[in-house]
């Protein structure tokens, strides 16, 4: 097994053509066995991907930017910062990279809900080249084998309000579930709603029916009590609680999210 440290994206693309390669950024989510079994480990830390920048109205985050760096760079009340604050620990956030977190979705990653709600896009090199939506990436992960994520980007600001919360046993614990709500508003009415639950049996649940019900309505006109009654969420039993319990907590957090956003308007 050998380690490679490409200096350019072209060099990376060349290396990705080989079989048995494995990409390393921070390495926190990579088991030793994985390194041992790889023919080549490609460490991407020498690539110029350690950035978080606002490019017009787009936030661009390079794959090797650490979670700490993202927290320091985005607005302190940004949805992603809220999610990152309860992700792993300070020393881990200093090492976990955005690219690794997106590509491997380790236990402690709280990225999924927020990135879906933000409509994030991924820049990818390797067997596939170009920009793909994060949602597409998640729904067809196999297709992206042999690729490397080089950038995550999403719309900055706009008339969108967000809520994020999660359930865990302690402050450092990985999330048993997360809920993310994002409403983009046109004046007083909801233009588009995104509601995502993660930690459930499916990789994530978009609450499409509820989202559709919001469209074109004023938040005040929506009856919060019945809002999530028809939502079916299925969770596996986890150390933090049984499946049915987690489903119940998810519903409570969704309600609270809606209340928080409605009262903030």
């Amino acid at each position, binding site marked *: 097994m050998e*380690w490679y440290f490409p200096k350019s994206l072209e060099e990376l693309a060349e290396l990705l053509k080989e079989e048995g390669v494995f990409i390393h950024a921070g390495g926190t989510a*990579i088991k030793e066995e994985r390194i041992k079994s790889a023919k080549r480990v490609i460490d991407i*830390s020498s690539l110029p991907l350690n950035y978080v920048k606002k490019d017009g109205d787009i936030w661009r985050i390079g794959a090797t930017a650490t979670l*700490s760096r993202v927290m320091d760079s985005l607005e302190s009340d940004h949805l992603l910062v809220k999610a990152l604050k309860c992700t792993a620990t300070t020393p*881990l956030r200093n090492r976990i990279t955005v690219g690794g977190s997106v590509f491997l979705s380790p236990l402690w990653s709280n990225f999924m809900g927020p990135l879906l709600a933000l409509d994030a896009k991924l820049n990818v090199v390797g067997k596939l080249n170009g920009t793909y939506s994060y949602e597409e990436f998640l729904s067809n992960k196999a297709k992206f084998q042999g690729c490397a994520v080089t950038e995550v980007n999403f719309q900055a600001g706009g008339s969108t309000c967000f809520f994020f919360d999660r359930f865990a046993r302690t402050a450092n614990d990985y999330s048993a579930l997360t809920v993310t709500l994002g409403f983009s508003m046109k004046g007083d009415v909801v233009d588009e709603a995104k509601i995502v639950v993660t930690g459930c049996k499916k990789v994530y649940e978009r609450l499409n029916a509820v989202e559709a019900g919001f469209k074109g309505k004023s938040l005040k006109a929506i009856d919060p009590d019945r809002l999530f009654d028809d939502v079916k969420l299925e969770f596996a039993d986890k150390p933090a609680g049984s499946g049915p319990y987690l489903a119940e907590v998810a519903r409570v957090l969704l309600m609270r999210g809606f209340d928080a956003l409605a009262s903030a308007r």
Partner: protein
Amino acid sequence: MKASFNINGKVHELEFAPHARLLDLLRDNGFTEVKCGCREGFCGACSVLLDGELVNSCMVYAASVGERKITTVKGIGSIHEPHPIQEAFVEAGAVQCGFCTPGMVLATYALLQRNPDPTDEEIKEALDGNFCRCTGYVKIIDAVKLAARKVKEND
């Protein structure tokens, strides 16, 4: 494989397995001030600074460290010339078994570099990667506050 590592300001040529963690590289080469408590990135006993940033050395592959500067607790002070943070831990009664202390001291060092005057909440967040079973953290938080005062006085 073989590579050179900058540890506490000195360059060392060291041999290691391609899958070796930084923790093992350091301990196997005599840097036993880096402790091993869980090997799963939770307890922080193995904390070191990489270019001044706190990381769990058990979660870092040695091969990936490259030119970056590694600092262990011995890189900031010694029993003969202690750093004010180490003195603060001693004075505040923050050292019980002491197994977490090198990591706690480094976490404090990294915090005070960024934020010389942290609030209680900021201290708790900065130390959230370091587990201690002995103290209930009360005296450790006292120590960080005392250290902040000491470091300021020293400047």
